[in-house]
């Protein structure tokens, strides 16, 4: 006898995540799935998930300011934090990849046509593995805000893109880290796609004296908590 499989609408399931269908972010229009999501029963799920055991991640990969002959322009910053699951346990040895615009708000990508200067000394990409406590640390420059075509006079708040593997599909996360006090937050449909203001706060790094290195770089702290809705049991079935 076929077992029955439950489905959920995106609204029912999304939790802290944005809905796929977030109309203010125009590109969702033809790309957001509309059919109910199929809930994989736990016994049919893959318990392992996309583990990433790459051994050639070097310390230099985490320093985006030392990938060229010269120093990139802009405000040098340190971005650090801890990766944990929803119970607070560290997620160790997991790969974090980051990418970002340069200090002028331009990506080193051929599709980016924003008329701000490219920086020959800044490629804008880095990666590292979390340590035994789930900690990570990048050195980079503070990215600039930039315009985009979503609506009239649309600007993205400064942000760094992050991809984190975690230990299971429910922990795989791609997100964006923002900077405290950005005046563009109320106007950005991507930031605002996170519906609960408390969840929005989880995307904003905090300025951190402890991380700041005198005479050298300001520190920002960004802790990451992995785990989708299933991390919180929905029902006892």
């Amino acid at each position, binding site marked *: 006898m076929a077992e029955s499989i439950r489905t959920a609408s995106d609204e029912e399931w999304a939790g802290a995540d944005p809905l796929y269908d977030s109309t203010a972010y125009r590109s969702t229009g033809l790309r957001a799935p509309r059919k109910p999501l199929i809930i994989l029963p736990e016994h049919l799920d893959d318990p392992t998930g996309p*583990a990433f055991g790459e051994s050639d991640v070097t310390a230099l990969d985490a320093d985006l300011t030392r990938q060229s002959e010269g120093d990139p322009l802009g405000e040098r910053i340190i971005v650090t934090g801890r990766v944990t699951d929803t119970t607070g346990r560290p997620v160790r040895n997991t790969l974090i990849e980051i990418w970002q615009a340069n200090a002028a708000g331009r990506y080193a990508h051929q*599709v980016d046509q924003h008329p701000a200067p490219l920086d020959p000394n800044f490629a804008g990409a880095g990666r590292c593995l979390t340590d035994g406590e789930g900690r990570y640390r990048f050195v980079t420059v503070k990215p600039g805000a930039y315009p985009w075509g979503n609506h009239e006079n649309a600007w993205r708040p400064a942000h760094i893109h992050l991809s984190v593997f975690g230990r299971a*599909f429910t922990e795989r996360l791609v997100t964006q880290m923002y900077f405290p006090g950005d005046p563009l937050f109320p106007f950005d449909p991507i930031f605002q796609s996170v519906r609960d203001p408390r969840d929005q706060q989880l995307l904003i790094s905090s300025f951190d004296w402890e991380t700041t290195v005198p005479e050298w770089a300001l520190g920002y702290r960004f802790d990451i908590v992995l785990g989708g809705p299933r991390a919180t049991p929905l029902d006892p079935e």
Partner: protein
Amino acid sequence: MRPTPSQTVGPFFSIGLFARPGNELVSPDDARAVEIAGTVLDGAGAPVPDSMVEIWQSESGWGRCGADGDGTFHFITVRPGAARDQAPHIEVLVFARGLLKAVRTRIYFPDEEEANAADPLLAALEPIERATLVAVPEAGRLRFDVHLQGERQTAFFAL
């Protein structure tokens, strides 16, 4: 603790995520090699050039392929074995500009009729949904298109 919310990969992820080639899980010369190719399509049937596909199989690991400017991706991998009482399948995540969170699906194999018919997940789906999860044979390889939206939308799992 509340989890950190998801955000879109945006259009420029290739600068950060494609530093190394990742779409060959085994050598194309491997006797077991299977090629799987496809296109990520939007609700109007247009290819989605700024998308990327990740696959995962417990035996052969993880792979990633950008949709290469024309929305197409391809992988060289091996056919996975049957997992417990399930038909052989490959796990898939798709990311794109305009997707605020990845979508998750699976690739099943068209020549595994018996195993597919007995698979508890496939058996529970409507025929139209089930069909979206089974790759199509195509000149020496398998084709698996991902329809993000529309009548032919691929069946996606809650993430």
